[in-house]
């Protein structure tokens, strides 16, 4: 469904992405792991058509994303949505949140998502259904972003991501701005939605545990280069790239530390 063909991108004469290729099949979830600065967010932006690669192509459902003009791009984008990292910045602070959620539906009057069939004529009702779908109370519809917690805002961002029933949802570090307990809730929500809606995920994160939980395949980025690519069950295999091993080790250490601390406090 999505083919990324050896794209490269340079920012201020520093290579951000170097010859990256990957493929996402329908219903499949791919994790992109890397430390900050490894170019993973840039990759997400290019795949969404928000940024142009210097070289290479992105094909989505057989169309080259970066040569399309306005109307065709808009039609394609319907299948290609995003959940941003910073839940605070991804919602307009001056709008009640329900308006942000139903905005994509206003732009695509012809699209009738399966879960909104009965209420498609009423914007407020659609927002209500979407809120239910991400586990939020309809009391929050009229709130402004600063009146909500980080977890609630991220759920709203997820709701906006699924409104058009896309094929592919790009999640750019969807949990890294949240508390550990809330992270688990949001991940469970995403997992559930993936099953219900048969979504594909491009899950960008530095959190190996989250990617392991969400994805079937993992690509490891280091300084703009894809150094490793494997099935999730092979994460601990001996044939992994040394950098992957290092990342796994580091995340294990962190987890142990958290466990030790828990022991200390209880």
């Amino acid at each position: 469904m999505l083919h990324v063909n050896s794209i490269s991108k340079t920012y201020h004469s520093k290579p951000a992405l170097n010859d990256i290729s990957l493929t996402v099949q329908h219903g499949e979830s791919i994790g992109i792991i890397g430390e900050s600065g490894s170019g993973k967010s840039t990759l997400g932006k290019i795949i969404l058509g928000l940024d142009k690669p210097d070289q290479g192509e992105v094909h989505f459902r057989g169309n080259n994303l970066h040569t399309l003009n306005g109307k065709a791009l808009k039609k394609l984008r319907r299948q290609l949505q995003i959940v941003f990292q910073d839940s605070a910045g991804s919602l307009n602070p001056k709008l009640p949140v329900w308006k942000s959620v139903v905005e994509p539906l206003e732009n695509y009057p012809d699209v009738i998502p399966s879960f909104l069939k009965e209420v498609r004529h009423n914007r407020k009702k659609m927002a209500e259904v979407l809120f239910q779908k991400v586990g939020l109370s309809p009391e929050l519809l009229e709130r402004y972003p600063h009146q909500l917690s980080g977890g609630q805002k991220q759920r709203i961002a997820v709701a906006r991501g699924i409104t058009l029933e896309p094929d592919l949802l790009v999640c750019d570090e969807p949990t890294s701005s949240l508390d550990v307990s809330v992270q688990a809730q949001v991940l469970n929500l995403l997992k559930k939605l993936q099953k219900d809606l048969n979504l594909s995920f491009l899950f960008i994160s530095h959190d190996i545990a989250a990617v392991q939980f969400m994805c079937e395949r993992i690509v490891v980025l280091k300084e703009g280069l894809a150094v490793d690519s494997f099935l999730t069950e092979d994460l601990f295999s001996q044939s992994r790239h040394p950098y992957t091993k290092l990342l796994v080790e580091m995340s294990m250490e962190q987890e142990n530390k958290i466990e030790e601390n828990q022991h200390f406090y209880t």
Partner: protein
Amino acid sequence: MNIQMPRINRVPFFFKNQNLLIQCGIIFFIIITLTTLIGPFIVPNDPLTANMSERLAPPSSAYPLGTDHMGRCIFSRLIVGAQSTLGITALVVATVALIGIPIGLVIGYIGGRLDTVFMRVADGILALPEFILAIAIAGFLGPSLTNLMISIVFVKWIAYTRVVRSIVITERNKDYVQAAKVGGSSNWKIIRRHMFPQIVSPVLVLATLDIGKVILTISSLSYLGLGAQPPAPEWGAMLNDGRPYFQSAPELMIYPGLAIFFVVLAFNLMGEGLRDKWDVKSR
């Protein structure tokens, strides 16, 4: 026993829960508006009728603030003059906002070369002092109230464009704009739905503070003879008329001066209050 107290709500909504600055400003503003609207119908004398036998008369029951050098009632002239001074000010500020805001929205959002060219032109205009430029334009077009308005609009709209543009530039790269793009919103819709609400409060503050300055500019230009033409009553022109008599009859300049002072004060109080209220990070 359970007695429900009726909710006392005698204070109007726009007055309640405001800070002291805004409250003072609002009181002034209401007085000024009422005076401007009703005043001309209840003034004791015709503001244009000269009565040479009553020149420079002291305050009396017929002339509450005395008469000027032509024997015209100062009180009546002040009140009728409020209409032209404040009416022109409102018109100027509205025009300036109508021109400045859309241009700022568009060039801020599109950016690139258009923005660069535009801002260099604006810098060029701003390099000259606002007031002197207004004098030059008003002088070039010839003295009349319309030309006065044109000249002030010409120098003022840039400030609004700059404010709007800088806000749009900081906002347009935020995630929620990107999200709107991914959600299929057109640029026009993003400007309308997402950019416009961000600029409303800063522009309102700017406009409120600007009203004071515009009144001063109109009065100053009229004082220089470039605005309202005699015998039409206008506060700045009245100041100008009183100038030759400054030593013998200072009240000719004191009254219009005080009128300008209080109106400017009222709008500045409101502007400062609104700024305090809205310039908080999370609304």
